[in-house]
């Protein structure tokens, strides 16, 4: 267990410089979009009230309050998080391939470590999960900072402040990543974890059988996808016999079974089939 912790730490530290850069980018672009929005609203206020002599009430009636809600739904505010999410997705592939295809073949060293090889699998998976949780936590943590920036620029009379929870609810992807009830949290992350596990297994299939492995991995991935969506197919065949909730739970059960099978398969590949 101690070695597993060291492995996770080691893997995490390898991505840390890129991760910090990503978080800085997220902060800067989001802050820039808040500043841009705030100054735009401020100039509208100035123009309406000073130049055109509109009253505060008239302005608010025409334009509404300036609020984080307007920024949170904008594309530019979501863009850095999309970039970070895509980077983490690419890293799911890169986290394995860099050990084979990097300048030095580090996979030799990893496979020779005195730990059960499946621990490499779990440590890399744990790092991906940590990166996602870290990104979500960072996003939640900087939302109040963004609101402070808005407060510094827009006078209180023209502003509608939101609570942090209100901002989380207003940001589409955070609604998904931080759902209100625990069951949704388990389901959302359960599917995410199952996806990573299946993808890791596909990578290990390819690394074990190389050219032939590309086709086997593709077959495995497509098969997994069909299985996960099979309850929908069943629903169509049975003409909406099941409740939507039941379909979701069936999918979730299939995802769990697939994850378990993938872990056993990965363990077998790492111990018996993998090549440096």
């Amino acid at each position, binding site marked *: 267990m101690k*070695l597993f912790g*060291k492995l996770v730490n*080691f893997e995490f530290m*390898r991505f840390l410089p890129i991760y910090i850069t990503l978080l800085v980018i997220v902060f800067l672009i989001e802050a820039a979009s808040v500043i841009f929005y705030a100054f735009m609203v401020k100039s509208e206020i100035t123009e309406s009230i000073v130049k055109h002599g509109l009253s505060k009430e008239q302005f608010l009636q025409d334009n509404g309050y300036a609020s984080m809600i307007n920024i949170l739904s904008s594309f530019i505010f979501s863009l850095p998080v999309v970039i970070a999410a895509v980077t983490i997705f690419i890293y799911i592939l890169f986290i394995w391939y860099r050990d084979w295809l*990097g*300048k*030095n*073949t*580090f996979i*030799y*060293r990893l*496979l*020779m*470590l*005195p*730990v*059960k090889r499946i621990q490499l699998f779990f440590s890399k998976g744990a790092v991906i999960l940590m990166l996602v949780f870290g990104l979500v936590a960072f996003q939640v943590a900087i939302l109040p900072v963004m609101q402070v920036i808005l407060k510094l620029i827009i006078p209180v009379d023209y502003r509608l402040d939101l609570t942090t929870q209100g901002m989380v609810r207003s940001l589409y992807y955070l609604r998904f990543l931080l759902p209100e009830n625990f069951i949704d949290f388990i389901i959302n992350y359960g599917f995410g974890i199952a996806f990573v596990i299946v993808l890791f297994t596909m990578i290990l299939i390819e690394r*074990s059988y190389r050219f032939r492995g590309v086709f086997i991995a593709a077959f495995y991935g497509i098969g997994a996808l069909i299985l996960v969506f099979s309850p929908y197919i069943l629903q169509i065949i049975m003409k909406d016999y099941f409740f939507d909730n039941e379909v979701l739970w069936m999918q979730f059960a299939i995802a769990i079974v697939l994850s378990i099978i993938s872990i056993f398969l990965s363990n077998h590949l790492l*111990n*018996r*089939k*993998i*090549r*440096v």
Partner: protein
Amino acid sequence: MIKLTGIEKRYGRKSILNGITFEADKGQITCLIGINGAGKTTILQSIMGLTPYQKGEITIDGEKLSPEVMEKVTYIPDAMTLLPKMRIKDAFQFMSDFYQNWNDERAKEILKFFKLKEEERISQLSKGNTAKVNLLMGLAMDADYILMDEPFSGIDIFSREQIADVFSSHLVEDRGVIITTHEISDIEHLIDKAVLLADGVVRKEFMTEQVREEEAKSVIDVMREVYQG
């Protein structure tokens, strides 16, 4: 003792190892000799579980391969296996974090022996120094067996001499060494046992001293007989 029995290995339809059987004892230097493609590296990788084999059995001191048993063996590949951005001291830290049998004192001794500096980055090492660091990482472990893959490959004469000196030092004393090479001249006088490979089979296996004393032949003489008829 590392014992290989009937190891068979194929890449697709191509057969790489065709029933390799030999033993390497502790306290001896066993040299796997053969031209490129003879299967030398594959044998070492099979012992380390770095490439799968289809048939046969490998045991270390009578036990099948497992993470616990593998702590008895250290592998020195012919390529650098540490991250380029690591400094040598980071590599030491990495090894001591993960290996109970990492001997920091010995690592520093070898570092001094090879005239390397802890602050040097892996990416900035010359080819000769890369080979030395590779060797260092393997030798600094308190392992019973050392597997070395082509330690002299592509390096200058002075580095070769330095590396060859290691074989006659206390650093490998009492340990079992399996070394692969196709450049036998550097270590001919140091090896105890030679295993001549060709086309994935053991063509001849002999104790070098016995051949020298009883037949008055060098390892190279025996190689000529085996490979050139």
